[in-house]
């Protein structure tokens, strides 16, 4: 338990710092790399929570596909590699809004889940295994699963149709 806790805090601090850099960085490529750091961190947190299948999927899909897509987007739009100002003039109101939201959420989360503990044990590992996930996915959530398949096809064809040069 202690080892997982130490791992959590190290990863959490890295994630938080990287997340802040994503929204403040003055360089597009750096922002993308910081985003990848957050995504890998989240994947590690899922492994700590013994959700192995989700953790691995997060890693492959986000780090493998989404992050590469972002970098690809940055390359093809020939974004400048040198720092540039990407912020609008609402920085201070934005900061106020998000800090207020954070304060409210943290206060209410502590109120709602103050002393609750997650017990990491073997039965939790069984829940996150791919056979359990697959069973639930194809028994209970088969309609959304099929809907997602159509959604991916639509997204693919839509993206090609709109990005194609003609």
């Amino acid at each position, binding site marked *: 338990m202690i080892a997982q806790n130490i791992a959590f805090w190290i990863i959490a601090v890295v994630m938080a710092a990287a997340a802040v850099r994503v929204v403040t960085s003055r360089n597009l490529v750096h922002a993308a790399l910081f985003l990848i750091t957050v995504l890998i961190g989240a994947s590690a947190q899922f492994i700590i929570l013994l959700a192995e299948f989700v953790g691995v999927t997060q890693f492959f899909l986000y780090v493998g596909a989404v992050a590469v897509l972002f970098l690809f987007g940055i390359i093809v739009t020939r974004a400048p590699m040198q720092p540039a100002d990407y912020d609008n003039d609402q920085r201070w109101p934005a900061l106020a809004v998000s800090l207020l939201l954070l304060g409210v959420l943290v206060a209410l989360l502590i109120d709602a889940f103050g002393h609750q503990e997650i017990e990491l044990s073997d039965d939790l590992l069984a829940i996150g295994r791919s056979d359990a996930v697959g069973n639930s996915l194809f*028994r209970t959530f088969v*309609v959304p699963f099929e*809907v997602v398949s*159509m959604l991916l096809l639509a997204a693919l*064809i839509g993206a090609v149709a*709109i990005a194609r040069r003609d």
Partner: protein
Amino acid sequence: MNPVFDYHALAPELVLSGAIVVVLVADLLFPDREGLQTSRLASLGILVALVPVLTLAIDGADRSLFGGGFVVDDYAIALKAFFLLVAYVTVLVSADYVGEGDYYKGEFYFLLMSSVLGMLAMTSARDLISIFVALELISIPTFVLAGWRKHDTKSNEAAIKYYLIGVLSSAVMLYGMSLIYGLSGGKVLLADIGKFAAAGDAPPLFAVAIFLTLVGFAFKVSAVPFHFWAPDTYEGSPTPVTAFLSVASKAGGFVAILSIIYFGFFEADESWQPVLWALAAASMTVGNLTALRQTNIVRMLAYSSVAQGGFILVPLAVAQDAPRASFEAVVIYLFIYGAMNLGAFAVVIAVARRTRSGEIESYAGLGQTAPVLGILMSAFLLSLAGIPPLAGWFAKFVMFRAVFEAGGAGAVTLGVIAAVNSVIAFFYYAGVARRIWFEDPAAELAGPARVPAALTVALAMSAAVVLVIGVYPQLFARVGELAVPL
């Protein structure tokens, strides 16, 4: 133990999926071949998908699949029929617009039908995951369709604004849903969440979770103050897509709100009632006041649809005190709004074919140059304003009936706001009608208007619905009564 599949319950979605694949493949195999236009194929596919909806309606039994996550009841069937009819009319109004431009035709109908598939799935979705997935299938194809005029920077802007608002609203909605999942002890089924809400021992965080979820939906239905993207997106998108966005995609959002409120949050009314009340009042007022100032017909209709969205939210905001009447009012309002708004957009498309203009000025003298279009446009606009004997009055009537049944200070105040807004709305709708009949046309537009066959059918269908419901509302009121699942 193999899961037992009730194919009949899933038949509308399955048939439409099949039709979608057929459209895609046919477009690939027979590009631009005469006699096999993708628009005809698409409209045929949509009509075929209506057949299982009818057989399900005749059968009448409620079906619940996959542990209650997918339900086919009268409410779902009625709205499936609504979405398929709207899709059919949208294909009709798109046919010549898309056919004459340099657009990808097959892909256009493919994306349109995919979005409709999401709407069908939404009507039956009874858990958070299904609702989320269906909402995304509704939205993602429309992001692309909004930018379909690729070389027009206005259309590009419409797409990026709609897209960014869409993904942002999904993220906010999902954060709310994730909190609901945790607070309710790991429930995704709306029925289970309903039991949790009814128990009444939820911490204040539950109210925040409901608020965030509703904010996500408020973006989708462009309720004030989350409406700012709608006029730009509506103006920049190709007009048939605008018609689709303002009717079908908006109705999809309302169906989601209806399901999640009635089957999930219902007993936690102190959390959602004030939110919906404020959204309804703000949408009606801001939408109507801004519509008054518009000079472009599509922007005017965009703000008008924001205001109409507010009217649809009114019964939802009093749902706790008049559950049956409110549910009926929302369903009936959606049906009638669909017919009159699609009709208005069909006229806009027909007029723009000749004048190449979206300005309200270009409607001057339409009554002289194209009397039929003039009559139809006046009818749709006056129906939107709620003037009897056109269908719009019945929509307003059921809305006010729900308000009066609910009673109470909050409901009555909202009813007064709605009444004042109905009067304000009359001015801008009637303003366009006045130009049509009492102003002289610009000289160069003297020639007769030619309206293509598909567009004529779309206009006739919308006009028929608006007239028949307006004159014989009792025929239609039955649909609303049947749809109530309580």
